[in-house]
């Protein structure tokens, strides 16, 4: 199979800006993107910088963007992304500084992982033998323990593109791993810290990390679970919780979303509410603010379902 690799190259010591270089190689039909890159480095251009080790999607070294999507070069088959005679676009992982070519600086990545205290903090004196955890609990935690810290999720996180201070999917999935661990006793502190700015409420719910994770860690789902746990633990003085409560309440009341009410109830106070006046006025003038909010027919059935299943929202009232 003949494949062309279109590689984004950048050497900060020589190049002013990144440049594209194409390499055409002959590879086996079962070859991966990494196989082809190694072949390029060994046979065509030894100056091409890339990072790899295990070649079996265990070590997490070769995360990069392949056809605009984060992933492991060693797990991505060329037949699937290019095909015979095709071209595959290879770029360094996104949202991290480029050291050279396909190698990115992972220091900011690990700084964020460290920021969530990624170690077990049990309470009390250690037991005589081991800590006991149920199989069920550990099965639950296992999904996030599968993370190999490759950075594919960070590469494609849409929030990190606009805010480098966001903790990001990898660190938050790591935080979840300890909050969900039955042996850990620091849930309160963890959930409190994660409810602050740059934490769980800054995730846009875009599924990008779920889509690209090569180990099916589903970081976004961990973040959403952290939100649920944080609200249940009482960390509710934030717009995320206010929005969630308001959302639930308007659907409980009428069966459908009342956007105006949710927007008003989601803000922290009058000052913030005023910052929305421009949007509100423009929407009103364009006939986009409904003058009345009618409940759906049968809204009483919806309310009964809420009363049965959502006690928390009732308590928040």
């Amino acid at each position, binding site marked *: 199979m003949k494949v062309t690799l279109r590689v984004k190259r950048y050497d900060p010591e020589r190049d002013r800006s990144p440049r594209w270089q194409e390499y055409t190689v002959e590879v086996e039909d079962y070859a991966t993107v990494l196989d082809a890159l190694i072949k390029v480095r060994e046979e065509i251009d030894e100056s091409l910088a890339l990072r790899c080790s295990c070649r079996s999607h265990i070590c997490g070294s070769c995360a990069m963007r392949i056809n*605009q999507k984060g992933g492991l070069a060693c797990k991505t088959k060329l037949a699937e992304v290019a095909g015979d005679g095709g071209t595959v676009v290879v770029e360094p992982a996104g949202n991290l500084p480029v050291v050279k070519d396909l190698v990115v600086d992972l220091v900011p990545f690990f700084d964020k992982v460290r920021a969530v205290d990624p170690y077990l903090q049990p309470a009390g004196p250690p037991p005589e033998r081991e800590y006991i955890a149920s199989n069920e609990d550990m099965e639950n935690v296992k999904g996030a323990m599968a993370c190999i810290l490759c950075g594919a999720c960070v590469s494609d996180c*849409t*929030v990190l*593109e*606009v*805010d480098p201070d*966001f903790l990001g999917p990898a660190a938050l999935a790591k935080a979840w791993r300890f909050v969900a661990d039955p042996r850990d006793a620091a849930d309160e502190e963890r959930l409190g810290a994660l409810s602050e*700015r740059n934490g769980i*409420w*800054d995730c*846009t*719910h*875009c*599924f*990008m990390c*779920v*889509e690209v994770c090569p180990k099916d860690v589903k970081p976004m789902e961990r973040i*959403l*679970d952290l*939100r*649920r746990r944080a*609200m249940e633990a009482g960390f509710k003085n*934030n*717009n*995320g919780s*206010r*929005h*969630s409560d308001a*959302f*639930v309440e308007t*659907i409980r009341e009428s*069966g*459908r*979303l009342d*956007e105006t009410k*949710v*927007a008003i109830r*989601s*803000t922290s106070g009058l000052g913030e509410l005023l*910052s929305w006046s*421009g*949007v509100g006025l*423009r*929407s009103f003038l*364009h*006939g*986009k*603010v*409904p003058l009345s909010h009618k409940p*759906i*027919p*049968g809204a009483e*059935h*919806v309310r*009964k*379902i809420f009363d*049965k*299943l*959502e006690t*928390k929202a009732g308590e928040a009232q």
Partner: protein
Amino acid sequence: MKFAYYPGCVAKGGAPELYKSVNACLGPLGIEVEELHGAACTGAGVLTERNPELADTLNARTFAMAERLGLPILTICSTCTGTMYASHERLKDDAYRARINEHLADEGLEYRGTTEIYHLMWILVEKIGLDKVRSLVKRPLNGLRIAPFYGCYIVRPSRLVDPEHQKRDTYLEQIIAHLGADAVDYSGKTKCCGFPITTMNRRNALKLTGRNIAEAKDQGADLMVTPCPLCHLNLDGQQIDAARVIGRSLDVPILHLPQLLGLAFGLSPEELGLRHHIVTPRTVLQKFLAGAAV
């Protein structure tokens, strides 16, 4: 072709132009609908993150209503579609569905697991066919450069919303081409509009909004089109604020998918609700649709 119509909250609230324009396009497309007036909000992911059982119950209730009519569901919102799909997937488990059905019993409803869900965008390609769509064009959108903007929930997770690998994340481009216009390619097309964090971190939300529009504009887009009214709330409703946050002018009109169809089908601006747009498409459309009074 008949569907149980689920317009969603925003089409009946903050985006009245979407509801209007869908109604205007149904006739030409040969789609009959029975609107599910009693269906509740899908929960838009917000309910799911807080209480999955509650969200799945509300969605099972909607699926049961459609099932009773013997009709597949027609949606017009990426977020509704993705949220329904996630519930739909969990409700394939017989034991779980039985538990959820207990919550519906009071109302005399039961979901047996047979309802199918289609977004309008999927129906155009998979049920009606693009050749048929092209045959309905009375006013080709020749010369218009249009940037697609999908909305996260309709493209991810791909194994959930595109299980048969039909490349549903290319449908907007295909539709745009069949209406006579040119699709603009840019990396933002499947990214986040910023809406979900608009009350949590407005600055980041507006940066996301602005960045996507700016990229589309830099690639030459005259217009953007979206199948998601929540994206529209940010891309159109907050575009002025987004432009201020990213420090550059944008002024790119954002059309809902059925509005774009309607323009090509020769429908009037009134029927398509174009007066409701914050960023008016008037100038762009006047320039390109010669003779069309917009």
